[in-house]
């Protein structure tokens, strides 16, 4: 839905803190949709109105309204859930949604296809499992990412703890969510309630935070408005390097919009984190562009006013200066699949979930399989920012039982898939995403197959190459950080972007615009041939393309940052 800024701002302003006319909308039996204004507000409650685009034209001819349904997104910081919660979410997906759980690139779950009549019941069921959906979407701080890396369990635990508390701290204070979905009695007129941090109109745009634990950058820390890079000194958490102004989203043919990587502006001690995060958020709240929604993200505020101005404004609000950034180095931004031993003899199994979609398909009974696993698992589950799933904290003795289930339900893609298939990302796109211009999730397996054939042709099948596909330039699969990326332009047509690194520190560049599959494959075939012939040992495809001057990359983040 391309809503102009002014309208969104007015809707927020008049919504009495996100209530709007949602209750009326929900009780209107004539339509499966909610009122236009409420479609903006319901996002703040973690849900989107969508329709099945495969059926749009058919239903128009049948004189029926579009097949309206709702997507619901969870707020699950760091993507950590217990087996009990998994079972609850699985039951909800099966009863109310389209019998699938969608692991997102922000370590959350999405349900698709919930109809209006059952929306409230679904929300209640989710909350009953002690997971909420508050601020999972909307112009607020979104789900907070944390490196899924479970190996350094101790340090990971420390970082996760800060992330979870920060997510809690930055939650809107409005009780609207609890009134509308959980029948909480409204405090007379809601006067006693206020939004100290956000104010009546919340943020100009979404706001995203990620925590990375080097050397792993699986969260693509520089793709977020606020990136926190953990600095660990002999097992202790010294603090965080702060990166500001990252973001992927862009619009075709609009030079005013573009992806950007965050810039490291300094270091904070753990006890300073909340103050700094809050100052960044309120600075963006007060200075972000509320007239032009396409320019409302933090990255543009910094573009417009300069990073130095922004930093000093933040320091002023926080009441102290940031320390100089500490040294850090990232090795890669992928996941490490299979069993890995962590501390205290606990084991972690990272499974490949293609495009994050957990469902039963023929013999590949992934939803059932993970249900079975959840029934016997005594550790926890972790979603990765690469749409994969970790069965974490398994006692050595219990590995066999889990392995058995993994095999029976064909959850063992991680064992036999090519590096290309293991590392690929795809956004949801059609049929649910209202903004999709081309296929992504549904097209990924097929596309990978075709690219694999090309790689084999040049005996590159074992080379890890990061491929990402988005159905539109919004960049939900963080495509601009893929060595190869397809960005949807129209049905069957994509922009081909090339040349990112595998560390999330260099954006790719537009190579060919608006081309179809044949042209894309032709182009890759040509480049793979050169790569196979001219690459240095260990040289990644993206790095090669840059060295070979096939593409001229934008300045990236130095591989080794020494403060």
């Amino acid at each position, binding site marked *: 839905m391309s809503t102009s800024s002014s309208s969104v701002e007015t809707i927020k302003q008049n919504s009495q803190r996100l209530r709007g006319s949602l209750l009326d909308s929900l009780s209107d039996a004539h339509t499966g949709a909610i009122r236009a204004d409420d479609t903006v507000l319901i996002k703040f409650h973690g849900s989107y109105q969508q329709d099945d685009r495969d059926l749009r034209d058919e239903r128009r001819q049948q004189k029926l309204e579009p097949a309206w349904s709702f997507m619901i997104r969870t707020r699950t910081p760091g993507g950590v859930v217990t087996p009990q919660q998994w079972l609850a979410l699985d039951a909800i997906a099966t009863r109310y949604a389209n019998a699938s759980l969608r692991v997102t690139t922000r370590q959350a779950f999405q349900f698709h296809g919930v109809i209006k009549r059952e929306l409230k019941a679904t929300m209640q069921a989710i909350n009953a499992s002690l997971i909420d959906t508050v601020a999972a979407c909307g112009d607020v701080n979104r789900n907070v990412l944390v490196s899924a890396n479970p190996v350094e369990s101790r340090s990971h635990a420390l970082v996760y703890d800060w992330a979870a508390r920060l997510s809690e701290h930055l939650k809107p204070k409005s009780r609207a969510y609890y009134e509308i979905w959980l029948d909480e009695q409204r405090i007379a007129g809601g006067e006693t309630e206020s939004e100290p941090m956000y104010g009546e109109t919340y943020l100009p745009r979404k706001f995203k935070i990620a925590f990375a634990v080097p050397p792993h950058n699986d969260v693509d820390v520089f793709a977020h408005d606020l990136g926190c890079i953990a600095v660990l000194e002999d097992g202790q958490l010294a603090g965080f390097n702060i990166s500001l102004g990252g973001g992927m989203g862009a619009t075709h*043919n609009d030079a005013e919009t573009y992806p950007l990587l965050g810039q490291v502006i300094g270091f904070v001690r753990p006890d300073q984190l909340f103050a700094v995060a809050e100052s960044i958020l309120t600075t963006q709240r007060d200075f972000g562009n509320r007239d032009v929604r396409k320019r409302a993200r933090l990255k543009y505020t910094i573009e417009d006013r300069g990073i130095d101005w922004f930093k000093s404004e933040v320091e002023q609000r926080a009441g102290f200066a940031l320390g100089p950034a500490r040294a850090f180095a990232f090795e890669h931004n992928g996941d490490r699949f299979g069993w890995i031993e962590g501390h205290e003899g606990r084991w972690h199994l990272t499974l490949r979930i293609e495009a994050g979609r957990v469902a039963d398909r023929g013999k590949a009974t992934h939803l059932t399989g993970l249900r079975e696993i959840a029934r016997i698992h005594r550790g926890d589950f972790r979603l990765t920012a690469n749409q994969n799933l970790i069965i974490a904290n398994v006692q050595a003795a219990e590995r066999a039982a889990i392995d058995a289930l993994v095999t029976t339900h064909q959850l063992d893609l991680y064992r036999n898939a090519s590096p290309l298939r293991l590392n690929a990302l795809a956004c949801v796109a059609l049929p649910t995403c209202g903004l999709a211009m081309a296929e992504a999730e549904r097209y990924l397996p097929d596309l990978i197959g075709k690219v694999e054939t090309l790689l084999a042709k040049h005996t590159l099948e074992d080379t890890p190459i990061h491929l990402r596909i988005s159905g539109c330039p919004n960049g939900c699969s963080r495509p601009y950080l893929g060595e190869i990326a397809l960005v949807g332009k129209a049905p069957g*047509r994509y922009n081909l972007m090339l040349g990112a690194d595998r560390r999330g520190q260099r954006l790719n560049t537009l190579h060919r615009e608006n081309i179809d599959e044949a042209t894309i494959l032709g182009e890759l075939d040509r480049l793979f041939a050169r790569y196979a012939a001219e690459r240095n040992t260990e040289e990644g495809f993206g790095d090669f393309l840059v060295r070979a001057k096939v593409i001229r990359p934008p300045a990236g983040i130095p591989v080794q940052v020494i403060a």
Partner: protein
Amino acid sequence: MSAQFITPPLTPLTDDKGILLARLIDGLDTQALWWLSGYSAGLAGNQTGIAPSVGAPAVPAATPITVVYGSQTGNAKRIAERLVADLESGGAPVRLVRADALALRELKSERLLYVVISTQGDGDPPDDARGLIAHLSGKRAPQLPDLRYAVLGLGDSSYPQFNAIGRKLDSRLAELGAQRLFDLGEADLDIETIADPWRKQALDRAIELTPAATSRSSVVPLRAVASKAKHDRDAPYLAELLANQRITARGSEKDVRHIELSLAGSGLSYTPGDALGVCPQNSTELVRNVLDLLQLDGDASITQGSETHSLRHWLQVRRELTRIGRPFVAHHAAAAAHAGLNRLLAPEQSATLIKLLGSHQLIDLLRTYPARWNADELIGALRPLTPRLYSIASSQTLVGEEVHLTVAHVDYEAFGHRHQGVASNFLARSDDDARIPVFIEHNERFRLPSDGSRDIIMIGPGTGIAPFRAFVQERAATGSSGRNWLLFGNPHFQCDFLYQVEWQEALRDGRLDRLDLAFSRDQANKVYVQHRLRENGRELHDRLRNGAHLYVCGDATRMACDVEDALLDIFGEHGNGDREQAAEQLAALREEGRYARDVY
């Protein structure tokens, strides 16, 4: 356009209005006609301050310039808005319309049309223009001899189908006889480069074409021609099928069709509440099965009374194969010498026999109780194929010489075989250009109140909705002020909400004042229209007390009785009388013609 009347060239009237006017003045004396001319001229004067000159000017001042846009992401809309601003400041009467808000039937009456439209997908129209493009590309597209137009296409030359839609529309309008004022503009991503000069041109031509001077009014009289013999049940009209659209979605157990037929030139006309008679034919497949089963030769020529046809023709066009009656069963029982079947014919067994008649088509009887038949006896014993009636779902005031139906396709499994109903299947299996033999079955007992200020209450679950679509169309077209309350029910909201989009629009712009829904299978406990009636008993009773008219249409076996039951309870409760009095009140309503039923 009508065969009874010919609207003269160059009247600004649409055909539909032409017909109405023709009806109105039919048989008026000279004096009345002169009065009428003065009256309408007066009206025109009040409207515009200027009266049109004879022979219709380039753009009668009364008809504003229409600027239509089809836009996905707002560019075309933006340009269209600018153009409208230009024209207004240029002093031309102009209206801005989004493509899906343009009344397609009124295209014919447009005089000067500017279109700004983008191309989407892979050469597809923007969503809001799908309907318009489809309509104009289709064979039902009107001829537009009186239309002048120009098109501005918005596109992106990096797409193979650059401006496909702008181009298509521009050439299609020309094909339809409209006159292109100037060349198609093909804007690329740098929209203004092309759009600005295009707008300038549009403004200049518009000013040129809009007549300034006023001139004396004059009336072009309509010449009535002798109306030719009307079609009826015995001489049905072969109506062209215009549309056969399933309107239940995936997952529905029902296959309900929206059928549109053309009455153009038939001289047939109808009033909301009337039904359309359809003279069906059995499917060739069913006929073949019967022939095979009885091992009869389809080509054998059979004479009954004065008529001689092949056996195949008799079975396909002249005889009931899907409904059998007692006489035939008796005949068959004798032939089959089947004890069980004979017993069914005994008087005390009549209930069982009725069940059999309701559940067995001829083919089932032949399969379960095999018997030999010779062709002559068979044709002698079977009933003549009778027409089926369908409530008309359209108002001529709106659709002119078309007639719309809402048909549930009878298509079911029984005795291990697929079965169909003869008429509903005849319609459901027909595709475009098929010719359907039809006639009008007038129904004076199912009429809108002559007083348009009366409220109406319409109870129409399932296909019972059909006549109420006509009612609401008519009441809106004739500007009736009374409130329209509709109660509809069906199994599922998602797939069985017949005409959902039309009702939503009607509610939005007040053509429908209230809509209560009962989707029986969307919750554990079944909910039907009679439950909704009971829930709103007070309101219903009040409206009736204030003179509202009550209508029930649809299933006779269960629904009609349950609804009547609910009505009696409501009368009892709110009219605080006993069941007796309630029944009397209902009877009284029926007498006054305020409680009408069209049930089947």
